[in-house]
């Protein structure tokens, strides 16, 4: 069977080749244009002809079927959807009804539907263009193999290849399909909203406005959404994410190490105690905490009955108190998860490293700094980055615990509001989808800058096989 790497002629001057390097196959779109015979050229327009001619019947039919489906789709709905998207964003003017902050569709065609179907049609077209390259390469591959090896592999060979050499195709198909439809498509849809005038006043009658929404967020315009509001929410988001991530990580690792000590008895019992709180759904414990920390809640009453305080502690009414409270409560929520994650990895550290260190007379701090930490950082850098991004996007803790309170009068965001809860309030409470989308994009930019920088500099990216 011809796998990609075997087919390639060696290059004359070898560049530095990383372990990851996969040589390009000779069946590229470019080569197909240059060397393709007449059948391959016909396949540029009618999919699968080249494959059919080389007796790859099933493959050829499949390629043709996809083309037929796409053409059918474009003729029936796709073309009009794209046309509406570009030229006429005319929803009917009727009042739109909202339930839970989401527009309810009735018979009339609202702008949001036009936008969604338009974006979907556009999305399918992009996929189709990609599929065209697949088809062209497949056509040329059939021709190439027929010429060089006398026959093109049949359908059965392809199936066998999917089990072994190109197993990644069969393995990744469904996961990637899921990601495409339920992650990427909605994202494109929402991003395109940032460039429209789709807010509470334009639920059915909106147009493209370019960068106007970005200007609203980044200028001092006296409205509810302005640069000052944005900067203060952004600053708090970063502070929150930093403390929530690293306090959780180090305290969790510390507790896990204390439990893991050789002389600590009842290890399972202690782990059980800490993992007990995982069994309680997070939002339940958060709601309970929320009610316990109210001015008249259980904790204030308890402290008052002990005579420790006179009035109620301002857990969610004073900005600083509220901020510290959410970070501390988040420790309670997050540390059990960290312990769970970290315990296994701690036990995975090769024991001979520690034995060697013992022989050299290292104390526990030296062992921690020179063996435990490098290993942990190596294995868990991706985890740390996901936790950090997860915390910037930590909707549940903030929304359920403090609801963003305390909120100054007339402001659109409270003192503990993260970008993400602010976004939620703007879209769900105020229906300002365009501003919400802009905030979402800014959140993304913040995360992208922070995590790409750290990830690219981390050991586990540069040297994947370092501890193998």
């Amino acid at each position, binding site marked *: 069977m011809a796998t990609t790497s075997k087919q390639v002629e060696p290059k004359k001057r070898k560049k530095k080749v990383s372990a*990851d390097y*996969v040589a390009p196959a000779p069946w590229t779109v470019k080569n197909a244009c240059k060397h393709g015979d007449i059948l391959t050229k016909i396949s540029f327009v009618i999919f699968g002809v080249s494959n059919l001619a080389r007796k790859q019947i099933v493959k050829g039919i499949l390629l043709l079927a996809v083309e037929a489906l796409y053409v059918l789709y474009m003729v029936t709905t796709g073309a009009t959807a794209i046309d509406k998207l570009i030229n006429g964003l005319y929803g009917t003017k009727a009042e739109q009804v909202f339930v839970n902050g*989401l527009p309810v569709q009735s018979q009339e065609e609202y702008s949001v*539907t036009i936008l*969604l179907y338009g974006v*979907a049609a556009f999305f399918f077209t992009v996929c189709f263009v990609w599929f065209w390259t697949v088809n062209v390469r497949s056509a040329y591959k059939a021709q190439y193999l027929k010429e060089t090896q006398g026959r093109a592999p049949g359908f059965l060979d392809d199936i066998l290849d999917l*089990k*072994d050499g190109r*197993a*990644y195709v069969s*393995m*990744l198909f469904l996961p*990637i399909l*899921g990601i495409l439809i*339920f*992650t990427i498509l*909605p994202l494109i*849809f929402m991003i395109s909203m940032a460039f429209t005038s789709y807010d509470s006043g334009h639920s059915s009658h909106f147009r493209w406005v370019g960068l106007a929404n970005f200007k609203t967020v980044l200028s001092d315009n006296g409205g509810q959404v302005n640069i000052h509001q944005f900067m203060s929410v952004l600053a708090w988001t970063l502070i929150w994410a930093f403390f929530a991530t690293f306090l959780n990580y180090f305290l969790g690792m510390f*507790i896990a190490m204390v*439990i893991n*000590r050789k*002389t*600590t008895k009842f290890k399972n019992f*202690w782990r059980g*105690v800490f993992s*007990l709180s*995982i069994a*309680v*759904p997070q939002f*339940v*414990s958060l*709601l*309970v905490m929320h*009610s316990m920390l*109210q001015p008249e809640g259980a904790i204030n*009453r308890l402290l008052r*009955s002990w005579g420790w305080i006179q009035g109620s502690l301002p857990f969610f009414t004073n900005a600083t108190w509220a901020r510290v409270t959410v970070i501390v409560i988040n420790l*309670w929520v997050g540390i059990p998860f960290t312990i*769970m994650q970290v*315990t*296994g990895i701690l*036990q*995975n550290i090769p024991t001979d490293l520690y034995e060697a260190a013992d022989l*050299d*007379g290292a*104390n526990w701090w030296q062992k921690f700094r020179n063996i435990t930490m490098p290993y942990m950082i190596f294995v868990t850098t*991706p*985890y740390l*980055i996901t936790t950090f991004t997860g915390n910037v996007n930590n*909707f*549940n803790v903030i929304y359920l615990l403090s609801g963003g309170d305390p909120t100054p009068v007339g402001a659109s965001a409270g003192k503990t509001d993260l*970008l*993400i809860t602010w976004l*939620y309030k703007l*879209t769900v409470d105020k229906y300002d989808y365009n501003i919400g989308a802009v905030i979402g994009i800014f959140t993304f930019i913040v*995360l*992208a800058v922070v995590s790409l920088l750290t*990830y690219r500099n981390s050991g*586990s990216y540069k040297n994947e096989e370092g501890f*193998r």
Partner: protein
Amino acid sequence: MSRKSNSEYSDKAGKGLHNAHTRRVVADVLSYVLLTVLGIIWVMPIVWVLLESFNANTSPYQPTFFPTEYTLNNYNMLFTDKTIMDFGQMFLRTFIIACFVCVISVTFVLLVAYCMSRMRFRFRKPFMNIVLVLGMFPGIMSVVAIYFILKAMNLTSGNMTVIALILVYSAGTGAGFYMMKGYMDTIPNSLDEAAMLDGCTRWQVFTKIILPICRPMIVYQAITGFLTPWLDFVMAKAICRTQDQWTVALGLWNMLQKEYIQNFYARFAAAAVVVSVPIAILFMVMQRFYQESMSGSVKG
């Protein structure tokens, strides 16, 4: 440092035994005290919920920290009183969703992680970067869009919301492969090579070699997958519009809203306990696997 090593060597010779022994006992005591204090902090709110669920006084904001009178009535009402909320139905629905999501998400994550860790193809690095970038978009942003996509698929009416929720919770899970990949990266490549020399295909290497070794991580992934539907209420709130579509999370959340809280506060605690039971059982079963195989990807 050198002084310490001296003492350790002399310890083995029998001289400084007392010193090292005392130090270890002090460290032991300190760690037990620490663990006990922290343990109480972690267990306290759970005990409170448990006791509150038996509280005879069902209104919120009571004068004492722990309830004074106990009754089983809250549990009874939770399952028999279907006039306002049918909790049993919600529970069953969430359980079904959770099972499917658990299986699908574990499968997806394993497949993607294996490809990224073991196979080399041109789309690999771009894919890893794309997934990283996608993870940085706030998920809340796409709630509205996902609702409309599901509506276009006719999945938002009646009992179809169950399928809708399964799709929503599991479709994107392939993107969460990083932790699993990190674990697979610690498995020696020589195992794969040996198996392939013996004639295994990539798929067979995956199912026969890698899967058994990854058991601890699978457990972790299974727990996360199973928990998703119980924990999420934002997505559920957007998709399930009527009460007969609610998941447990949505029901619990609503019990603490203004309309219900006066009568449902103790019942909320009871519901919280009931929800935690399947999760706790599952968790304990899996914990056994988890610790068993946590002592390293490959031993020796």
